[in-house]
């Protein structure tokens, strides 16, 4: 257990072990970034933070975000339903394009590779509920820290190329995407199948790809092998894994997953109060229809080590947005009183993590509150105040990292 694996282990466990009671009076490192849960190892993956073993829900430990492209073996996993493919036979597997189309398609994996121009996009895949554990009052669902996200280079076929080949007919209002995963409840019930739709007029369709490659490799099974829908700049809820059916709908999709789950308050911050929810008159929109709000994160320092006074370090992090990439990232080392611009790393495209860094030399021992605040290409800056909504979605408050700086003499 050395190297990467060693650093990826949750830190609170070490502290807890010291007195064996779980009620240590020691000052803990930041347990907030990653949930303090056991790790689990599943096929094709490194040990990841385990939220659920069935259906499989796993989070990416913070040190992996040191790399702008999240390794496939560390990429987070989130399923709603537990009948997850263990094996897929590509000699039988087909991608179907059907419904209100002139020419239904049945494409083999080989045909996707050979008959369509391959395209590549670097894009962040983030669970709509990433950071849900920060909502106050708490809301049900996967209690993510910040580990429900990852960034990868996706290669595949343009969704529009498939749709043109099939000839989507007039009268189509939406496209519904469904994968091979399913649930054990009765057919027709919401927990039997998971499908998501995008409006036919949504401009994001032109950016979507049906990806057969992730960071230059086949997709891990738990990230959607053999192909998944990539919807750059949008939440993962519509990045359907094991994609097998694309259906042109002439009626709106009125399923549970579109009309009841993954709904955001229809306002700029996607924020309401519990009292407003109780009135039952909340106007909502589908989370899949809006760009992900701008966010930024500290990767280092992560609070696991005490810093030493007058020893220079590089503060390093990532930022992203669904609206035009990252324009700037500001960093405060005094709890938000003053801000300095971080230097941005090379740009991998508007949907990617953007790396940023700032040299810093703490001049006095003490407890410091570091903050980072990103502004995206459309001028949206992260809010200082928290948001709240009943689903625990779209969190993007300015992040705080507490660090301890010790004396050197």
């Amino acid at each position, binding site marked *: 257990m050395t190297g990467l694996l060693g650093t990826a282990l949750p830190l609170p*466990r070490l502290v*807890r*072990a*010291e007195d*064996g009671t779980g009620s240590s009076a020691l*000052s*803990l*490192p*930041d*347990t*907030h*970034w990653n949930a303090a*849960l056991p*790790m*689990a*190892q*599943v*096929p094709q993956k490194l*040990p990841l933070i*385990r*939220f*659920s*073993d*069935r*259906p*499989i829900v796993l989070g990416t430990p913070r040190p992996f975000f040191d790399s702008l492209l999240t390794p496939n073996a560390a990429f987070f996993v989130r399923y709603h*339903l*537990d009948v*997850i493919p*263990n*094996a*897929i*036979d*590509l*000699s039988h597997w087909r991608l179907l394009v059907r419904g209100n189309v002139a020419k239904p398609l049945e494409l083999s994996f080989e045909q996707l590779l050979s008959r369509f121009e391959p395209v590549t996009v670097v894009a962040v895949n983030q669970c709509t509920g990433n950071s849900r554990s*920060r*909502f*106050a*009052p*708490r809301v*049900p669902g996967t*209690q993510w820290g910040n580990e429900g996200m990852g960034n990868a280079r996706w290669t595949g076929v343009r969704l529009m190329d498939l749709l043109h080949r099939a000839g989507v007919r007039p009268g189509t209002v939406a496209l519904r995407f469904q994968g091979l995963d399913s*649930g*054990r*409840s*009765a057919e027709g*019930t*919401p*927990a*039997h199948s998971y499908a998501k739709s995008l409006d036919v007029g949504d401009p994001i369709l032109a950016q979507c790809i049906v990806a057969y490659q992730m960071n230059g490799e*086949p997709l891990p*099974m*738990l990230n959607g*092998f053999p192909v998944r829908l990539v919807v750059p700049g949008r939440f993962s809820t519509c990045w359907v894994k094991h994609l097998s059916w694309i259906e042109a709908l002439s009626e709106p999709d009125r399923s549970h997953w579109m009309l009841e789950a993954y709904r955001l308050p229809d306002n700029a911050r996607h924020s309401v109060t519990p009292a407003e929810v109780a009135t039952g008159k909340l106007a909502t929109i589908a989370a899949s229809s809006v760009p992900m709000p701008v966010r930024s994160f500290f990767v280092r320092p992560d*609070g696991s080590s005490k810093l030493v006074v007058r020893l220079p370090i590089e503060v390093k992090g990532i930022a992203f947005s669904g609206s035009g990439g990252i324009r700037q990232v500001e960093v405060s080392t005094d709890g938000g009183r003053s801000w300095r611009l971080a230097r941005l790393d090379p740009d991998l495209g508007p949907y990617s993590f953007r790396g940023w860094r700032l040299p810093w030399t703490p001049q006095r021992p003490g*407890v410091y509150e570091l903050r980072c605040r990103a502004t995206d290409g459309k001028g949206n800056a992260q809010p200082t105040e*928290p948001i709240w909504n009943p689903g625990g979605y779209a969190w993007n408050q300015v992040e*705080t*990292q*507490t660090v301890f700086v010790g004396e050197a003499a």
Partner: protein
Amino acid sequence: MNRHRFMAAAAALLLWTLPGSAGSTPTNPDGLSEAGVYALDSSGLLLPTSPYPGNTSSTYSVGAYPLAPTPLARGTGQELVESYCSICHSVTLIGVQPRFPPEFWKKEVDKMIHLGAPIPTEMVGQIVDYLQKHYSPVKTQPSAPEPKPKPSP
């Protein structure tokens, strides 16, 4: 098997290192305040998954997914919860939720039934009772707002 061997090794290591520990002498001339201290904690051990045998067929398999549900609190109704909730998901999901107020668990069970959980009407009360008893705040005070989440300390 593996785990037992691992723990035995860890225990042996503990015994072996304790006599040599510098923990009792906080001010060594070389600045070493503590070394060789271990605490036995088997919960941190991870067993590797077996690599799936390779072949060149058109079938891409990863083998079975490991199942290791976190056990539920013991009590009346536990078996009902295990039986009905486990149809669709592992009970691990219950224990990782925050301690929600009792009325929340009623809503959550109703939601699961709406999603398709085949829970007979006469069982709903017992399932909700169990969840409220074991997975709601210990003292049911009038919903004190949880402190705003802040990074540790």
